[in-house]
Each structure stands twice: as structure tokens, then as C-alpha cells.
């Protein structure tokens, strides 16, 4: 039995299928970082740290004429988003109801997706994660609200990346506000701004809840590494007469090994 304790929950196999499927549908569109950076794993819940391949000196080795060093690793962070579901709703699902209330699960999925995106793009200091936007050596460009200027901003960002020897294709993580503006905008001649930006990037443009402004990244590979311990999973905490308390959980680390391969467009 895994630590998720799913077998202990008063939820039928059909109920779990409904819950897992809803979670996948809610998570996949919002997990912007996974659409743009390298993903490795999952390596399992027991996996605790990413090997950095580096050491730090340990000056006082216990003996004569010894050289000692300690391996440096990047610990994985665990993120858990608790939520609760009505037991009556789950019983209705077993009866074949198609419209059961899974709103708390949807909220939890959004919270954990935002947390992952923020960690990757803006960092998480207390979690030991340095984000793409904060580590980028390029001077950021303000995105602003004038969508007509977005292609120019993105082209400038790509010029800066090319100037640093960073090849494409490139991807663009757009914060929700900027993404809405892009979707609503058609340029002169009716050509959608979305398509224009994709042509400049030669790569995807993704909706990125949790991102402030936008971030351009190279997708040539090897620059940004998201390592998964336990991939997103749903576990059981407890239940009472009315509700089942569950949680969405994952463990991961993130490294920006080529800081110059990302470019921040501030809001």
C-alpha cells in the first residue's frame, strides 16, 4: 500500500476514476511549465534530491593527509493541495450521475498548477528553487497592455537570446491577463495576434496561470530541468459522515542550468 492510502478512502473504483479523470482534465491545461521545459521522472516518492554533480570542500577531514568533500544536491520540494468532496455527491456518481460537484478538486488542481508554474518561472526562495525570470541575465522588457507591441517585444527577447548564442525553437509562457488580451486581439488585416506570435517563436504559446507578464524560453533542450519525484497524485487523508478529505500532491525540483536561455517580459 502506498503512502497515498487510496484504498482506505470510502470511495468506489468508479468514484476514483471520476476523480482522477477530472483532475487530469483540470491540470493538463494549466501546467504551463511542463509544456516548455525539460521534464524527467517520475522517480518515486522515496526520491529526495537531484544530483548536481558538484561537491563542496570539507576542511577538517578526520585523519592525516586526507582530502574530503561533501556532495551538493538539490532537495525536492513537496507540495500538497488539500480539498474535500461531499460523500453524497460521490454516492450519486456511483448511481451514474454525470454532473457531480467536484469544484473543490478543480480549485486544488488550479492551486497546485499555479504553485508549480510560479516555482519554475519566478522561483521559490524558501523551497530552494531559482526561477527562470529571476535568474535571467537579460534586462527585462515591460510587456504593457498594448497588444500591438507584443510581437516587437517577443522579437526583441528572441534577438537577445540569439545574441547570447541560445538557439530556438522558443516558447512563450503568457500570464492569464496577457493571454486573454492576445486571444481577443486581431491585427491589421485580421491575422490573429496569436498566430503571429507563434510564427516569431517557432514554438508554442501557452496559458500560464501564476506567471506575471510573460517569459520567453528556448526549447532546444538541456537548459531548464524539472525533475519529478512523485508525479501529481491524489491521496486520502480522512473522512467523516459528510465529506472525504483528499489532497493533490507532488514532489519536484527545478534547475535553470542555462540562465541566459530565458527572458522575462514584466507585466
Amino acid at each position, binding site marked *: *500500500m*502506498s503512502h*497515498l492510502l*487510496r*484504498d482506505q478512502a470510502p470511495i468506489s*473504483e468508479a468514484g476514483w476514476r471520476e476523480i*482522477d479523470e477530472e*483532475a*487530469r482534465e483540470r*491540470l*493538463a*491545461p494549466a*501546467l*504551463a511549465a*511542463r*509544456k*516548455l521545459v*525539460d*521534464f*524527467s*521522472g*517520475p522517480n*518515486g516518492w522515496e526520491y529526495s534530491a537531484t544530483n548536481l554533480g558538484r561537491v563542496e570542500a570539507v576542511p577538517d577531514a578526520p585523519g592525516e593527509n586526507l582530502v574530503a568533500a561533501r556532495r551538493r544536491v538539490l532537495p525536492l520540494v513537496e507540495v500538497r493541495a488539500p480539498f474535500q468532496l461531499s460523500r453524497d455527491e460521490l454516492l450519486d456518481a456511483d448511481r451514474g450521475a454525470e454532473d457531480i460537484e467536484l469544484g473543490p478538486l478543480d480549485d486544488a488542481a488550479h492551486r497546485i498548477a499555479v504553485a508549480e508554474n510560479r516555482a519554475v518561472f519566478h522561483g521559490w526562495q524558501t523551497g530552494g528553487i531559482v526561477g527562470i525570470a529571476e535568474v535571467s541575465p537579460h534586462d527585462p522588457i515591460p510587456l504593457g497592455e498594448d497588444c500591438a507591441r507584443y510581437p516587437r517585444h517577443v522579437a526583441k527577447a528572441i534577438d537577445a537570446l540569439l545574441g547570447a548564442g541560445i538557439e530556438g525553437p522558443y516558447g512563450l509562457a503568457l500570464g492569464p491577463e496577457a493571454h486573454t488580451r492576445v486571444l481577443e486581439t486581431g491585427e491589421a488585416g485580421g491575422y490573429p495576434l496569436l498566430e503571429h506570435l507563434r510564427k516569431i517563436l517557432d514554438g*508554442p*504559446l*501557452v*496559458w500560464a496561470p501564476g506567471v506575471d507578464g510573460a517569459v520567453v524560453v528556448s*526549447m532546444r533542450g538541456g537548459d531548464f530541468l*524539472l525533475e*519529478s519525484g*512523485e*508525479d*501529481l*497524485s*491524489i491521496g486520502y487523508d480522512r473522512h467523516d459522515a459528510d465529506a472525504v478529505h483528499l489532497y493533490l500532491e507532488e514532489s519536484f525540483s527545478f534547475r535553470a542550468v542555462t540562465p541566459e536561455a530565458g527572458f522575462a517580459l514584466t507585466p
Partner: protein
Amino acid sequence: MPFDQYHEPPSELPAGTRTFARMCASIIEEAEAIGWYEQRLAVEPDRDARAIMRDAQGEEFKHFCMDLEFLMRRTPLWREIAEGILFQDGDIVEHGEESEEEAVEGAAARGEALPGAESLGIGGLRGKPS
């Protein structure tokens, strides 16, 4: 009633895993039957009896193949490895090693769930529609 096909307590196994175990037991029985008919055919001198045994062995070939197809449909990694080995000319061991390495590394690169894991199996999403 025997429950030899289970290595772990059946009550702790998900329904899908119990079905998988039953089909594994079934394919073992088909393979054993194929082997038994092969031995009988090797020693049976009666022409009519041999014809019946050959027909019966053909049934076992069919059952074995249906079981195998079911198991591989439920286990994409198994199917992927099998595709690199089955119906290929050349060195079987070499194909096996190459196929296993490519399939396992490919599954890891796609971020597929570990066997037995209970995750949502989302993994990496590069190349997926945004």
C-alpha cells in the same frame, strides 16, 4: 478453489491487476498446452490422431496469441518492447536489448508513471496541445 495466480493478497489488488493476473495464468496454460501437444506429436505414430492433435495445437496457438494481445493492450511498455522483437529478422537477443532500452528510456522521457504507481500519469507535456 485455487488462487495460485496471485502473488499478493487478492483483496489488496485493484480489479485491473486481478484481471491482468488471470490472463497471465491463462497464457501460461496455453504455452504449456502447446508444449504438451508438441511432445505428443513427436511420439504419436497414428496419422489420424496426429491430425487431431495438430488441430488442437492450432487452437492453443490462437488462444496464446489472443491472451498476449490482451496483455500488451493493457501494458503499453510491453507492447513497445514486443514491437522491436516480434516478426523481425536477425539477432533476437540484440533486438531484445535494443528494444528494451529504447522503450524504457522513451517511457521515462515522456514522464510515464512507474509500474505500480498511483499517480495521475501526467508527466511531461512538451508537444501536447496547449
